């Protein structure tokens, strides 16, 4: 039986793996439109530049933090997509990096994807992730007099809203 030719998604993942054999730790293709790439956080800018210039992922829809206190890590997710290439415009490729919870630091992707500007500011504020090289890393949403740890961390609990 002849082997099947790789699908568009597999092809994309293979390209990334061939280019960054060490930095891409894991990948997952979910359904027809979603790819998740786990990568080494130090290689963010190289991967981002490659994805923008070679693969055509020209914008970021959002940057999310996910707190995981049991594994002592904070995940940062970049939801990337493409407007300019019709053949991949339905894909959302999630770039996912794990940061240590005691010092979450990652390079800022603003120099590659300008669209991450406010999303990184929000993730900085809500999860305390420091985006190194961000041109304007300030608080955005919370009150000026908000003191204390970043509010979206799981340490911050609101017992009055029900146990979690």
């Amino acid at each position: 039986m002849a082997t099947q030719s790789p699908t568009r998604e597999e092809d994309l993942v293979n390209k990334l793996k061939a280019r960054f054999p060490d930095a891409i730790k894991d990948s997952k293709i979910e359904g027809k439109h979603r790819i998740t790439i786990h990568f080494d956080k130090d290689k963010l800018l190289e991967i981002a530049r490659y994805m923008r210039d070679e693969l055509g992922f020209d914008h970021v829809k959002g940057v999310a933090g996910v707190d995981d206190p049991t594994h002592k890590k904070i995940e940062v997710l970049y939801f990337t997509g493409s407007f300019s290439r019709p053949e991949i415009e339905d894909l959302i490729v999630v770039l996912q990096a794990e940061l240590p919870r005691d010092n979450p630091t990652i390079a800022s992707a603003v120099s590659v994807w300008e669209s991450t500007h406010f999303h990184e500011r929000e993730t900085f504020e809500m999860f305390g992730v420091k985006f190194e090289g961000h041109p304007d890393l300030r608080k955005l949403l919370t009150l000026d007099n908000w003191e204390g740890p970043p509010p979206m961390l799981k340490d911050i609990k609101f017992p009055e809203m029900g146990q979690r």
Partner: protein
Amino acid sequence: MTTNPDQTKPTAPPIAITAAKEPSTLDVSVGPQHPGSGHLRMLMRVDGDYIVSVDPDIGYVHRGCEKIAEYRTAVSNIPHLERPCIIDAIHLNWGYVLPIEELQGIVVPPRGQYISTIAAEMNRIMSHLYWLAINAGVFSGHTTIFMYAFGDRDLFIELAEMLTGARLTYSFLPPGGPRRDLPAEFQDRLLKLLDYFERRLVEYDRIFFSNPLVIARAKGIGTLKRDEAIKLGMTGPVLRGSGVKYDVRKVEPYGAYADLDFEIPVFEEGDSYARFLVRFEEMKQSIKIIRQALEKMPKGPIARKAPLIIPEGEAIGRVESSRGELTYMVKGDNSDKPSRVKIMNGSFRSLIALPYLIRNVHVADMPIIYGSLDYWPVEADR
């Protein structure tokens, strides 16, 4: 506790505006009083009648929606998560439910998909009428269109109430499908309303969109070129007003959109007037979609019973809301509450356009540009 409180301290002074302060410049705080669409403050640096730069200061209506969502059950999150943009509640509801249905492996029956699509397109018309009344009409000093659009919007609201039981915050789409089938006489009343509304759109064109005063104020103002719109990650009518044909309803069809025939209005100019026209044309397309959906509506069940828990895993769902692509990431951990909900909406994505577009323009052009973005502060703040 491994977090460092210092991380949240501002790293720059509270008022930091990108352009340099000169002897001739003056800093003006605009807002945060309700400018017709929610609370937003803009720190403007002006030089005479020109805006040199603007620093959007948002968060006046931030409620921590994503945090609160972690405390509520999957179903009780529905009324909660549609609050950020109550004039577009169906889309905020639908976008949240799609990833949950994906994790649960639930497929909504075809009739349910059609009813959701009709409700969503009615909501798009209502939201665009609100934009036309306030963000386009009032902000450009055109009070006649405010009266027209608000009056007509109420007719749609009455029908939405007939369908869902609520005027604005419907909570109509729990996981599994819509709550109700179309009521008796609903179809006839909706078709009658669409006929009426189609005639009104001709009048809207005459008194507003072809009005030389509106054209003089909006044309060529706040131009966002195609490559800039892509680079900044704009979405929705703002993106399509800059010549990018991108609409989730076509790119990744959900609901009944794959079966329906409609166009995606695109304008190449990228100015405020082009964004006005995109929404005007979208209302016409919504009429077309609703008529087709009513005609093609299959018989059968409207919804399936969905479990109350969210299985382990994460899923991403997206819909084309009135303000553009609305993406939800929902992470479940086999309990009835999501462990993380991330909302990526059109308003927060168009926030970066404020400092980008409101620059080197007259102070009087600021409301036009702001209105043309259809920025909804509550949705952006969450």
